[in-house]
């Protein structure tokens, strides 16, 4: 009985948090008489501000489900954006090759991350932080400025609309749905949950843990490169600092954790992550509408991350490191 109550509670918690955040947003908008923020366009736009974060966070979900973590995503985003815009150089015929190359880079980086974690048995925090440094160093050594440019056609990804809804938003929702289907209905997907929940038991049960972990890291890195492609589309060009500017590494972890996916692995999912993205987006907008200092947002973010993990971890009895 207790177990069922726990599971339901955890699954619904992010939803209640989202309702609370939304309620606060509406409340403040009404209280300060700024009802222009409550138009349908504006509300849709809320999620639209966080497309890159959303895409990255979907990837991060895979990795956290497997009880690992990926702190190299921010710099990988920069690499993807710069590479894409450099290869495209304004030429529409280079759009498809650029996208393919960039995604392959993502596969490579993810594979390296996964192998370092499984084969060299390096703590995932250190492994991915080391990778982040590597990526940043190589990128900054080769590029100090915006590199190349993205053709106008490619900017459809960021600015295009289908039937009044932005292409990017539809893309994010489609990606989330795809990820959900993968996790829920495929064998590999359920392996991710098993390995994340208890890697040793999974191995004893005959699951190929190494393969699953590496795959999760690859999925995470590929999502990061896709986010980089989106940003290149939005900014018109890629630069070595855009990943760091958006703090995508820490924010994607925060958003995943708020969405109910446990850092210890094995629990949670992508719809929770999407709700986490919305909650963060609402927070951003609440601060804007309330006229609070934009920097104070960051203080709140730090507190929220810790609070969210503490909240969900209150059920564990481990003596943590």
């Amino acid at each position, binding site marked *: 009985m207790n177990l069922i109550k726990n599971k339901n509670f955890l699954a619904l918690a992010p939803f209640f948090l989202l309702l609370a955040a939304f309620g606060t947003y509406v409340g403040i908008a009404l209280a300060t008489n700024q009802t222009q923020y409550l138009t349908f366009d504006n509300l849709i736009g809320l999620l639209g501000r966080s497309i890159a974060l959303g895409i990255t966070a979907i990837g991060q979900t895979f990795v956290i489900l497997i009880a690992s973590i990926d702190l190299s995503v921010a710099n990988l985003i920069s690499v993807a954006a710069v590479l894409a815009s450099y290869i495209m150089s304004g030429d529409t015929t280079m759009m498809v090759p650029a996208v393919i190359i960039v995604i392959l880079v993502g596969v490579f980086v993810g594979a390296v991350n996964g192998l370092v974690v499984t084969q060299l048995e390096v703590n995932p925090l250190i492994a991915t932080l080391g990778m982040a440094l590597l990526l940043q160093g190589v990128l900054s050594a080769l590029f100090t400025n915006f590199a190349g440019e993205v053709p106008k056609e490619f900017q459809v990804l960021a600015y295009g609309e289908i039937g009044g809804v932005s292409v990017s938003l539809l893309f994010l929702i489609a990606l989330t749905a795809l990820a959900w289907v993968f996790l829920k209905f495929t064998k590999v997907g359920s392996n991710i949950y098993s390995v994340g929940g208890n890697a040793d038991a999974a191995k004893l049960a005959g699951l190929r843990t190494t393969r699953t972990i590496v795959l999760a890291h690859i999925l995470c890195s590929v999502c990061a490169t896709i986010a980089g492609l989106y940003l290149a589309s939005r900014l018109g060009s890629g630069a070595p600092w855009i990943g760091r500017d958006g703090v995508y590494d820490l924010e994607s972890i925060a958003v995943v954790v708020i969405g109910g996916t446990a850092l210890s692995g094995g629990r949670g999912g992508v719809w929770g992550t999407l709700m986490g993205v919305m909650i963060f987006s609402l927070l951003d907008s609440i601060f804007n509408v309330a006229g609070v200092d934009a920097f104070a947002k960051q203080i709140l973010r*730090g507190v929220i991350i810790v609070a969210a993990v503490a909240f969900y971890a209150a059920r564990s009895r481990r003596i943590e490191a």
Partner: protein
Amino acid sequence: MNLLKKINPVFIVLALLIIAIAVLSPHFLQPTGYMNFLKRAAPIVILAIGQLYVINSGGFDLSAGALVTLTVIGSSILLDGDPSATWWVIGVMFAIGIVVGCANALVVSYLKVPSIIATLGMMITLSGIALTWSGGAPRGYLPENFRFFGRFLIKDLPLIKILPVALIVMVVICALLWWLMHRTNYGKQLVAMGDNPYSARLAGVPLVRTRMIAFVVSALTAVMAGILLGGFAGVSTDVGVGLELQAITAAVIGGAQLLGGRGSVGATVAGALVLQAIFTLLNILGFPKPIRDVVQGLILISAVALASYRRRKSGG
């Protein structure tokens, strides 16, 4: 030969690097060369020892860099160029350090949040506080007597010619923290806790208090590093970025084991100097600054991989 086997390889690596630098850049053998090297290295050495305390307890302190930045910005704003306020402002900064260290420890101990996340959250919070306090741009000014620790050189000495105050500060703190780690009961309890928290608790080690002291030490070293770095260059909003990672790398190079165990203060000092020496060597060889990140990333991964390989081989 037996003696060589017993010495931590980090000391040998350090010696080789120093020789390489001296050969490539004879200016290094002048007091202005090696003293400036040590002056630049002092903040990282101090920070690395603080990080070692937390690593030995079985955790990480990712908030150290943000605390360095907060110290520099906070001091600059509070002082606003007024030299008479220096001492109480430094006191305030140390007080903030103690609060941060305690907060980190309490979150880890009572809220059961892994130290990675707890200190990550603290890092974001601290940099948010620094940004809010300063409005995003450097403000205020650090007076000369505050900058004394990080910048002042005692001149006209026999033989060594100049002695940076930062070096004196570094030696004093190293000695203090070495004594605390290796000559007191506390040090033993710390290592025991990092090695195996369950058996440590059974053996009567007060986990919460031990952890708290470790995090407070780390935070205080961050404040001290902030004072030195603020002295070095003045007010800056970027000064602490990435420092906690450099500190972890230094500790790992020195042989500290992540997730608990065995690091020694002496080897950590050598590890920090090795890192600084590698950066210096890269600079002398003409490699652009981003290459340092690449090298640091590679070192970090290989050092940890190597340590974990050795641990597996020895059955630990």
